[in-house]
């Protein structure tokens, strides 16, 4: 049982309410897309889930229990937007990945596990000894994914993981995300401002605006028959989109 559930979650920074009473469920093995403008509270909601933002109200549970704050296991992992800065520049790829792995096992076991994880994200295991500055943006984001997977999470939160990448690399990373999600049966909260990206990976979608959830449901339904004006605005803002029912 690994359902990530946000119940009436509120996050405040001083007088600003960044997230205002959001209830959202990421069912086991499902990918839920979270869309909205910049500043709508998407990332804050994610940060609250991994303990980077304090809760002013509500609760966040994983499989019915609160998300563990410290120690192991670490069933909820997050991958960040900018692969150029989210990895420690002084740690090699192998060190970054191994750090998140559960303790125990011989040195050889751990090395084999790092190689397995790198292969899982389609990175050449030769990269293990490299520091991040030697890698491209796409490769670094693969390292970030491998690092998140190393903790054997049940749920992954992906916060705009493709928006810092070139379009051609975006596609490759998205394919990888879909493949990993299918193979490993992970649940995923996939945050993006790009509706095309969300439609590609997510079965369900939730729309946020001004810290509130304005609409949620199956992706096809929400994107083809939006129930809220703001969703329609977002859809109209997608470039190159002529009719509301066009397929990619």
């Amino acid at each position: 049982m690994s359902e990530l559930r946000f119940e009436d979650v509120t996050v405040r920074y001083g007088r600003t309410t960044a997230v205002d009473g959001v209830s959202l469920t990421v069912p086991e093995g499902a990918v839920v897309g979270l869309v909205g403008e910049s500043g709508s509270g998407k990332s804050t909601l994610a940060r609250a889930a991994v303990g980077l933002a304090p809760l002013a109200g509500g609760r966040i549970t994983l499989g019915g229990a609160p998300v563990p704050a410290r120690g192991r296991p670490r069933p909820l992992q997050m991958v960040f937007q900018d692969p150029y800065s989210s990895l420690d520049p002084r740690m090699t790829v192998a060190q970054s990945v191994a750090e998140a792995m559960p303790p125990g096992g011989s040195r050889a076991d751990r090395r084999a596990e790092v190689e397995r994880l790198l292969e899982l994200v389609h990175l050449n295991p030769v990269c293990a000894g490299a520091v991040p500055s030697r890698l491209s943006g796409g490769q670094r984001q693969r390292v970030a994914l491998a690092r998140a997977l190393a903790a054997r999470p049940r749920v992954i939160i992906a916060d705009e993981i493709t928006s810092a990448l070139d379009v051609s690399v975006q596609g490759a990373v998205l394919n990888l995300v879909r493949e990993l999600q299918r193979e490993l049966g992970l649940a995923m909260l996939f945050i993006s401002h790009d509706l095309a990206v969300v439609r590609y990976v997510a079965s369900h979608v939730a729309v946020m605006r001004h810290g509130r959830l304005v609409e949620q449901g199956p992706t096809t339904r929400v994107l083809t028959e939006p129930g809220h004006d703001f969703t329609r605005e977002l859809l109209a803002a997608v470039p190159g989109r002529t009719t509301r029912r066009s397929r990619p």
Partner: protein
Amino acid sequence: MPATLTVPSPPVDPARPRLWALPSVRFGVRRLRRLLVSLWVLVTASFAMIHLIPGDPVRGALGPTAPADLVAARRHALGLDGPILVQYLHYLKGLVTGDLGTSLASQLPVSDVVAQRLPATLILAGLAFLTAVVLAIPLGVVTGVLTRRGRGRRTELAFTTTSIIVATIPDFLIGVALVYVFAIQLGWLPVAGDATASAYVLPVFSLAIGPAAILARIVRVEMVGVLEADFIRTARAKRLPARAIYVGHALPNAVTAALTVGGLLLGALVAGTVLVENVFAWPGLGSTIVRSIITKDYPVVQAIVLVYGVGVLIVNLVVDVAIALLDPRSKIRED
């Protein structure tokens, strides 16, 4: 016209790069060249010193009542009566063969004076540097963690104010104050000399406290900067324990800049021994150079200036090499 693409064949076998193409070799050669130029400037300046001093150094050393023929004989013995170029070449030859001249005051070879006094100064500077580092890094890390992201405003103010005050007090004044409190008032530690281990405490601390304050400030600023970095957020999101975040991720990224400043401080610290040694009557080069200046013993002054200069050059070289080795991203290796 069809576009043609010609690929020039590499001039050498790419599997075996020429020695000169290796970045580390290029760095080493370039750095060595710079060292030699600095060394030449230093040697020439120390040679020029004796000629730039107003008046006649020999007359100054022997005093106004010395007979003229004695002054002339001493000038001849020191080689000061030849053409300046000949004197310069003679000086260089002396340096290469280890002959630094003869002390005017004691008639001993200058190289013996230096060899006798150098160890005490090296030990003092080395211990002071170690003490500064050992004090500064934990202090900088802890205040950095306490004042990260705009927290602990009062701690920050207290730390920055105290450290800047301490850093601006000259080390010999710190020495005098330490002697007054710990040697005279409390009587815990000896006033001067290097006879016992406890005699090392006050000179070492009076040299180390100023650099430690500066270094701690640098480490704090670097820590605060690193703790803002995205990879620290990643580490927090990973739910790593605090120790792993601060020691494992933040510290290694913060100390590289601290290392550069630390090296420069070590250079300054070597020079600082001159005054502190005089406060504590420390039997090193610093007290010797001051005494030699007073007695106008120019060959000794010249040699000690040279030793201090070479010391600073060596420190700078070691710091550059250490940075190049420790920081894979260092630009120092590039042109």
